[in-house]
């Protein structure tokens, strides 16, 4: 069905930025509040579990070549139940998009835009990404090829400049937190890593679908390496107790950069990273929501649905939370279970259904 095609590396870059955007906001704070200086171990656990999520999504999708999540749900579960589950997934996608808009809106305000109302920032973000979603996946993939080096390059520059502030002994003693705390600390990152489940919508657009498994695992590998460096960096600057006290620990890490009373106040660079990566991630979920809605409703084209979906994202982003505290509480306590239901529980169930009912093509042979 889809005329658009993206290649393997484009898919990897898209998936990496999709994971990157949320994690770069919250990660060390929430994990360190459970696992202390062992947050980096939590992150490794999360990455390992995320690989399971990615492989589940891929083997599910590979049973139905040329079909995405919403299409094979109907084949697998029957027309009406399939559509119902599809709608649940759409709600979840919408939630992710709205949460992202709100996160960026609320965090930009106290730091960079003290007097601008939230709705203005949110509307600007939604409007810009609406244009991207209208352009379609191929456009997005190409735009992201331009953004990716900027995002990673700026992150690398910040990391390099913060090196003099770092002292890795802050990571000692290793394994002070018990296994339970480390697992607790890995839940939130796992749920963000799990957004790699988006690959189940991307699969039919790959020009070489047989690479799907490698694409998913490479994305997780790249994302994990970036995050490990960042988490280790931030904890070695602040130590575990101060890190866990921060809402946006990366921001404080960047604020610490001062070299020779000259190279300092580089928060603008961080803002560049935030805005670009949030833009890409929002466009992805925006596009996926519009596309999925069209398929559930049986429309040929998803483009007419872009304005209503955008309105829904904007409205939800404002109404979903009453405050930053509400957002943080939800993200730390409820969100992991909410997300893992859609990322792992339902896909595993579907995989079991497919195996028992013997629907779909053969699962990919392990070598590919």
């Amino acid at each position, binding site marked *: 069905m889809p005329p658009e095609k993206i290649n393997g590396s484009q898919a990897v870059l898209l998936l990496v930025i999709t994971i990157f955007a949320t994690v770069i906001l919250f990660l060390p704070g929430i994990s360190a509040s459970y696992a202390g200086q062992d947050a980096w171990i939590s992150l490794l656990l999360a990455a390992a579990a995320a690989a399971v999520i990615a492989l589940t999504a891929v083997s599910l999708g590979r049973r139905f070549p040329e079909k995405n999540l919403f299409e094979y749900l109907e084949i697998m579960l029957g027309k009406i139940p399939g559509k119902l589950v599809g709608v649940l997934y759409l709600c979840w996608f919408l939630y992710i998009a709205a949460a992202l808009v709100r996160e960026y809106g609320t965090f930009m305000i106290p730091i960079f835009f003290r007097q601008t109302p939230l709705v203005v920032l949110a509307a600007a973000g939604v409007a810009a990404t609406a244009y991207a979603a209208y352009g379609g996946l191929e456009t997005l993939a190409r735009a992201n090829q331009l953004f990716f080096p900027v995002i990673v390059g700026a992150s690398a520059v910040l990391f390099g400049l913060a090196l003099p502030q770092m002292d890795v002994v802050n990571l000692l*003693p290793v394994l002070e937190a018990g296994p339970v705390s480390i697992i607790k600390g890995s839940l939130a990152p796992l749920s963000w890593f799990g957004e790699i489940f988006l690959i189940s919508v991307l699969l039919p657009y790959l020009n070489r679908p047989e690479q799907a498994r490698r694409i998913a695992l490479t994305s997780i590998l790249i994302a994990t390496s970036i995050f490990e460096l960042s988490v280790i960096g931030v904890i070695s600057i602040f130590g575990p107790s*101060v890190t866990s006290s921060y809402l946006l620990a990366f921001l404080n890490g960047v604020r610490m950069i001062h070299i020779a009373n000259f190279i300092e106040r580089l928060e603008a660079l961080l803002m560049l990273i935030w805005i670009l990566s949030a833009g890409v991630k929002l466009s992805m979920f925006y596009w996926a929501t519009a596309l999925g809605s069209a398929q559930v409703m049986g429309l040929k084209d998803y483009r007419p649905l872009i304005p209503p979906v955008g309105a829904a994202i904007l409205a939800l982003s404002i109404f979903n939370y009453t405050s930053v505290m509400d957002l943080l509480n939800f993200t730390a306590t409820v969100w992991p279970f909410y997300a893992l239901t859609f990322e792992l529980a339902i896909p595993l169930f579907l995989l079991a259904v497919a195996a028992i009912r013997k629907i779909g093509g053969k699962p990919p042979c392990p070598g590919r």
Partner: protein
Amino acid sequence: MPGKIIAIALLLAVILTGGCWDRRELSELAIVLGAGVDRLPGGRIQLTLQLARPSAFGGGEGGANVIMNQNIAWVVSATGETVSDAQRNLTLQVSRQLIWTHNIVLVFGESAARRGVRDLTNFFHRQAGPRETMWVMVAEGEAKKVLESHSELEKTSAQSSGFLARSRAGFSIEFINFIKDLASLGANPVAARVKLARQGEAQGPGMEKKHKHNEVVFAGTAVFNDDRLAGWLDKSETRGLLWLRGEMEDGVITVPSATAPGKKLSFRITESKTSVKPSLNGENVSLHIEISADVDLEEQQSTENILDPQAIKILEERVAEDIEKRCRSALSKARDGYGVDIFRFGELFHRKYKKEWQTIKHRWNEEFVNAEISLAVKVHLRSMGLQARRSSLKK
């Protein structure tokens, strides 16, 4: 064509209206250079701010004379229940919006520090304005007095104390490190101790008024027990503190000559390294501290042959003794005087003995006071300036 016109109009709108909403013009801002926090006898918090006067900062080359005659900074203060409350009360006096992002120093008054600084630091940590890298100091007496002083060499006293802190000649600490010590069970905070001293010599008749005035000077270290000021370290003990925390960056050590009584030699520290190894024998904590330093000969009053390996060895030992003496005086002041670990040894112990730490972390200060401490100092004389031997030796 209409599409192009719309596109150009939109682009112009982006360029011309960008940043208008949150614009902050320099002429609408009051830039905070230094902040002081005092506790008044009733317990109210008094916030004193040193604000830059941008018009006086200008001037350039020709403006030097004008600048001499007007105040560069404006000092205001107000009281409140919290720091934020006091700041709010300040807005009744300051016609411009307060901008904290360029704050250089945070000074706690002595009485505020004695009552505890934990409650006073939160404002500066929670707000996006004040930087983590500002310097923390404790004033002898009132913080307000320190901020009210002015500097002859720099434009404001906040800048001058900031530069003094950055030179690391005395002990100085950035806000974030102060907070880390405050948050740790294995360390107690320390901060620079500042006071006012009459500085400058009158140069010619009629100049007394202008040149004899109070300047901020560094006068050792303020020692905290948890968040309460416990007392001070003098200059010599502060040197010991720097050695023991591994923060010695610069300094001169003067020791008596071995050959000529009454004559002295001065050495400049070029490299230093401190390693502390905690260990546990049964219940007892012991700490082994190794310090190694590289020094250059900077001044020699005596006449021994500095090329003679034997003489070098003796001098190195004398310098090492001096370092050890200062370390011991800092240690004994911290242990016997105040009973607190201000050297972050608890953190080191924690890193090595994570299990044992759980049982002693709440009484680490006692463990530190009773710990067995051994100290080994090694000094290497690396260079001797531009002279190989004294020139004025009469044969």
